């Protein structure tokens, strides 16, 4: 049996005097002075905390003292608590996004959050202001044994959430019996009903939001009998939605993942049109393919610089080495600012708006009947059209990989990487049509190979970039020898990573191309009796 709720709600304000009187019959109660509490909840744009079953709140501590950051589990149980820093530095200069390091002081709470939040900014989800009163149940020594916190929303929060109140029993460790007793007492009071989740669900609902209302994953559920043209349109519509949801974050430069997700959407859309576009009218596709290439190219300089800066973080630019590398990081920072400005200009340009318009039209308009055969192909069920294309893309990737030897140039590995991305996207588009067991196995092998190829190619680009940046800094003058040496060491570290990735390639490719994976690919494309929708397990 689940434990009884420690939270109660009432539709009207509750009289503190009556509550004290009701409790005071059996308990020794001390009442704390009334205070104003501001609750503010945070999560990343893609709800990473929610998905990990965590709730991060900035509010007064459970004892009603100064402002704290409280980490709770999804049942509202307090896991960690830390004092909130008095002032926070925003991620973007604006008030709406916070770097983890700025919002949460060093310590166990930040350590716990870091693995979940990673490089994403924390955004405020909702705010509630309430008047709070704490009732302490004490013993003869005035030791607190349990607390009841009563909160009534005030001001704007009262107008949006209504006039009710919430009561929360806060147990004190080692005195659980007292908290249980309070819960029983409150459950017997008229006008109170068990509740959960505090103010957050209501506050989110008021804002028209719900937990998990954004994900970069495709989450497409296509039926095998669906016409191919409608299936591709559904894919394009979903990708457009992800791209558009990320644009404000890119414009405000809240964190690097907004741009990453936007780029992935654009790239996925290009792949969809390249490999499946023949089921749609050729004229529309040709125009949009051009648009998507331009959109991708526009976002590349900023993303490349993000990747360099993140790679420098990963190589641990700290201490003395950090000081020596600082001029280089500053150089990259300035470059990134310039690239971001150009990106913002591009995103606000009429050309970008026209491209989105064309994308939307292709995803939503009824395809026109043309003479180019698209109508015929588009009318075939997607369950027939997609599987052979997946198999073909796999075969092409395998052939490319089989031709790679120890002496092959980096460009050959890059070509394979691009083909692997296409295969990955196809698998993810049509996941709901595929046999799930071989799907997961093939995807697992593919991801391992992609990780290796990605590491190799990123290192290749970064090495070349460090060298080019060094030339520019040398030409500009004013950079110390120590900085160039530190850059050299950073390039060496990148080269070492690249060497490791190259050494792993043969083994990973063998797993991707062996007989067992080939059999799994064949099983993937077998007709399925009842296709099950599948969650998109990740992204490249």
């Amino acid at each position, binding site marked *: 049996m689940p434990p009884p709720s420690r939270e109660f709600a009432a539709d009207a304000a509750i009289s503190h005097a009556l509550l004290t009187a009701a409790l005071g019959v059996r308990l020794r109660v001390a009442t704390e002075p009334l205070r104003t509490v501001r609750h503010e909840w945070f999560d990343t744009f893609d709800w990473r905390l929610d998905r990990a079953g965590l709730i991060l709140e900035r509010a007064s501590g459970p004892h009603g*003292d100064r402002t704290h950051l409280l980490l709770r589990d999804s049942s509202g149980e307090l896991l960690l*608590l830390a*004092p909130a820093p008095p002032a926070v530095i925003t991620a973007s200069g604006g008030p709406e996004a916070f770097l983890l390091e700025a919002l949460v002081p060093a310590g166990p709470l930040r350590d716990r959050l870091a693995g979940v939040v990673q490089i994403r900014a924390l955004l405020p989800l909702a705010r509630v202001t309430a008047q709070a009163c704490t009732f302490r149940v004490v013993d003869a020594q*005035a030791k607190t044994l349990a607390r009841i916190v009563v909160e009534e929303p005030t001001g704007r929060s009262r107008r949006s959430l209504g006039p009710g109140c919430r009561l929360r029993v806060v147990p004190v460790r*080692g*005195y659980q019996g007292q908290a249980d007793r309070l819960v029983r007492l409150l459950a017997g009071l008229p006008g109170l009903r068990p509740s959960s989740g505090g103010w957050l669900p209501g506050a989110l609902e008021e804002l028209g939001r719900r937990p998990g209302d954004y994900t970069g994953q495709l989450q497409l559920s296509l039926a095998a009998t669906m016409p191919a043209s409608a299936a591709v349109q559904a894919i394009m519509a979903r990708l457009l939605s992800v791209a558009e949801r990320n644009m404000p974050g890119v414009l405000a430069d809240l964190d690097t993942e907004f741009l990453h997700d936007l780029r992935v959407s654009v790239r996925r859309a290009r792949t969809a049109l390249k490999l499946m576009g023949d089921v749609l009218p050729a004229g529309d596709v040709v125009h949009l393919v051009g648009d998507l290439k331009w959109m991708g190219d526009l976002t590349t300089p900023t993303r490349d610089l993000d990747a360099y800066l993140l790679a420098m973080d990963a190589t641990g630019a700290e201490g003395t080495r950090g000081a020596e590398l600082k001029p280089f990081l500053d150089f990259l920072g300035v470059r990134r600012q310039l690239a971001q400005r150009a990106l913002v200009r591009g995103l606000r340009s009429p050309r970008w708006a026209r491209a989105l318009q064309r994308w939307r039209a292709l995803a939503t308009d009824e395809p026109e009947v043309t003479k180019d055969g698209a109508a015929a192909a588009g009318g075939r069920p997607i369950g027939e059209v997609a599987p052979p294309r997946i198999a073909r893309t796999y075969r092409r990737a395998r052939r490319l990989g089989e031709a790679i030897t120890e002496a092959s140039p980096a460009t050959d590995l890059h070509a394979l990487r691009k083909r692997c991305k296409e295969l990955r996207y196809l698998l993810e588009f049509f996941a709901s049509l595929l046999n799930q067991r071989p799907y997961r196995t093939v995807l697992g092998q593919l991801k391992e190979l992609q990780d290796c190829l990605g590491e190799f190619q990123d290192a290749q680009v970064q090495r070349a970039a460090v060298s080019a940046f060094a030339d520019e800094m040398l030409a500009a003058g004013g950079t110390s020898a120590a900085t160039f040496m530190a850059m050299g060491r950073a390039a060496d570290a990148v080269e070492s990573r690249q060497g490791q990735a190259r050494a792993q390639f043969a083994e990973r490719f063998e797993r991707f191309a062996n007989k067992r994976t080939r059999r799994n690919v064949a099983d993937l494309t077998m007709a399925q009796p009842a296709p099950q929708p599948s969650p998109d397990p990740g992204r490249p």
Partner: protein
Amino acid sequence: MRVLATYNIKGGVGKTSAAVNLAYLAAQEGRRTLLWDLDPQGAATFLFRVRPRVRGGVKALIRGRTSLDALIKGTDFDNLDLLPADFSYRTMDLALDRAKRPTRRIAQLLKPLAAEYQVLILDCPPSVSLVSEGVLRAADTLLVPLVPATLSLRTFDQLTDFVAHARRPRPRILAFFSLVDSRKRLHRDTVARVGAERSDLARAIVPAASIVEQMGPRRLPVVVFSPKSAAAAAYRQLWTEVRDLAER
């Protein structure tokens, strides 16, 4: 989990005051902190208004029949819990003596708490005994309050020697001057001289102040009810030094 122990062979030198204030300061920084009052007198337990009683007494505790986790009491402060004292702790030596590997027993008992607490402070009774040896094996840092008087310094030398010859793992020692009366020339001179001679001394100097004695009647850490006092400032500085040393 960092294990700190306030320890001295002598009594009445400010061990409990330091333990209580440092525990509060650690907890206020967001660290989950547990204070174990090992002294049967139960002064720290009294200051946090907790009943000095451990179910089953020390025998059940040392034999592992009662889990430490079940004995922990929340204090009135965020992040700060207490493992209360019990008068039966006066026989902890005997209980340890009957246990296997008696000097490792305290460390073994503490192990399961590492998942929950980042800081554990042991407030030790004033003695040299099996309990002290167990504490030496369990603690990362031994915090030694030092009254600036000849006999007290002699005792500190004895303690340093005792730790140096104890079995590994041995804690590092951080001593700090306590109950310092700046009106007394002997105290002033001793602080200056010993401070220049020794490297295991904290810069923080806890004064002999009536405000520290007020902790008794108020039953609160001095950093709570008199945060601007010199004593509170000394404890804050001491905590900073202890934390930096522990994290080094």
